[in-house]
């Protein structure tokens, strides 16, 4: 186990290096002078020269990459061009709302999708199964912002049950916090409920055809116990995979949802940075999200060998 852990950790390093190379080249491959992009549109020639010298842009490109990576490894992700604040501080300030939205979305998605998928598998081919499958195809075909706006229209405007938008930290009281998180969570989780329910259904159906299920039934085990203990346990690997993939995919949805519901999180920070052409922030956020992606994949791989002791690397 420790050997496997170490090997898996080492395998993540080249991926991260590759991400750094891509993010680094992104700014340099794009049309135009990076100094011009970094200095902003209205920069004078002197300002440009200053930026070039400060950024080390007059040095060879390989040297630039290594000094940039060196600063990254020391936790220096740069400063915002607009506000002049350290990017790490800006990200820290915005982290809470996004984390809250992501956690509530994944928890809701798993809590709804796993039972739904099992139910569909159990009723395979029957009307209930067809309905779940139909709803799930619709679920990931509708853009998240459309779902968000329809929810706002129905629950905030027509029924008046919930606030239209905004965010309140947990420290202001649980209800105030939860109230503003309900609609964004519902909107964002729809696609993931659809995705996870489909995979759960497929995996459970596949396992239900195995010999040990027949044995369990033959020895007189109840259908519920067969489903929960034997089928779900053995279908766990693909289910955990898809939940992990969902968490990793969440970032795109978070950007859109935060924009619809006016939540001041990392997604909104991305958009603000894009509109202001504040590239150090964009770079840092791409790096951060990629790091999260790699870490989640690492955790999934480790869970595999816990869930299924046959899996060894």
């Amino acid at each position, binding site marked *: 186990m420790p050997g496997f852990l170490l090997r898996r950790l080492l395998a993540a390093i*080249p*991926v*991260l*290096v*590759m*991400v750094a*190379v*891509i*993010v680094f080249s*992104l*700014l340099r491959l*794009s*049309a135009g002078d990076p100094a011009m*992009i970094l200095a902003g549109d209205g920069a004078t020639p002197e300002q440009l020269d200053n930026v070039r010298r400060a950024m080390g842009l007059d040095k060879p490109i390989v040297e630039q990459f290594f000094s940039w990576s060196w600063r990254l490894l020391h936790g220096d992700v740069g400063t915002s061009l607009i506000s002049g604040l350290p990017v790490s501080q800006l990200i820290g300030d915005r982290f809470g709302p996004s984390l809250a939205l992501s956690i509530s979305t994944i928890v809701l998605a798993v809590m709804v999708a796993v039972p739904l998928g099992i139910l569909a598998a159990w009723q395979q081919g029957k009307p209930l199964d067809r309905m779940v499958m*139909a709803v799930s*195809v*619709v679920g*990931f*075909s*509708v*853009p*998240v*912002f*459309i779902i968000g*706006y*329809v929810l*706002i*229209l129905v629950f905030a*405007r027509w029924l008046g049950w919930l606030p239209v938008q905004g965010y309140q930290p947990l420290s202001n009281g649980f209800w105030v916090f939860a109230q503003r998180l309900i609609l964004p969570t519902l909107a964002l989780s729809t696609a993931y409920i659809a995705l996870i329910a489909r995979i759960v259904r*497929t995996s459970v*159906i*596949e396992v239900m055809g195995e010999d040990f299920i027949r044995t369990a039934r033959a020895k007189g085990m109840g259908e519920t116990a067969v489903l929960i203990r034997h089928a779900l346990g053995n279908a766990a690997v693909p289910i955990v995979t898809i939940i992990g993939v969902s968490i*990793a*995919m969440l*970032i*795109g949805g978070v*950007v*859109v949802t935060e*924009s*619809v519901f006016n939540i001041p999180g990392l997604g909104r920070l*991305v*958009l603000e940075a*894009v*509109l202001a*052409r504040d*590239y150090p922030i*964009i770079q840092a*956020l*791409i790096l951060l*999200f*990629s790091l999260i*992606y*790699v870490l989640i994949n690492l955790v999934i791989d480790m869970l595999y060998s816990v869930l299924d002791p046959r899996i060894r690397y």
Partner: protein
Amino acid sequence: MSSSPAVAAPVAPASPLLAQLKQTLRGWPVIAAIVVIVALVLVAICAPLLGTSDPGLIDASQRLKPISAAHWLGTDAFGRDVYSRVLYGARISLTVGLGTVVIALSLGLLIGVVAGYFRWADAIIMRVMDGLMAIPGILLAIALVSLSGASLFTVLIAIAIPEIPRVVRMVRSVMLSVRTESFVEAATILGTRVPLVMWRHMMPSTLAPLIVQGTYIFASAILTEAILSFLGAGIPPETPSWGNAMAEGRVYFMLLPGLVLYPGVLVSLTVLSVNVLGDALRDALDPRMAKRV
């Protein structure tokens, strides 16, 4: 989609596959999906004939009007006819979908074939693909568009690039499994040149999964374009795309929800139809999956 049986033919003996394809395409959801897609293509082609006015025509006296005989879906904040703009939006969305599929599949196929055939290239290519896959697609697309300036072409490239690694992985895995097959070895022993072996003997095996992946890329490209435009990082705002229509309409959502919802329904319907078709094609072309589901 009538061309798919012909394209799928090289994969295996044609007759059982064709029979299965026909059977899979028989269900009513698939028929409905095909009808919707055909209708959208027709609308996109005939947009100038079906439109009631110029989609770019600004009329300040007709701002934010509700549905009427002159404006079948009302007007937007610039007094432009929403119905005509939505029709032209079909053009943009289908162009983006098709363009992304062409770029992602052709580049993915090329890179995947090289990675799957040449051992020396494999390690490097797959590391680059791993790195690309680790970057969230939307974020990469937003960054690419904002760096290289908004235009239809940059949006196409920006949406296609994050899709490429998955195509490469798939093509590579098919190539790896095919390269040890006896017909490939036979061709190599007979002295067939390497590009010809790859093109004529190995590449056809990737076609069926490529078609399936292509439909999913098509659907996701339309969604991504809508999201990018909605976020203000997409096609230039004056272009009548569905995403732009929704982005402009969001300010007036409480007043006229239709400005967001009409294009939204069309995006959803298009993506839904393509996804349904993709599922059906997957079941027909990938018997392993069909048996499972």
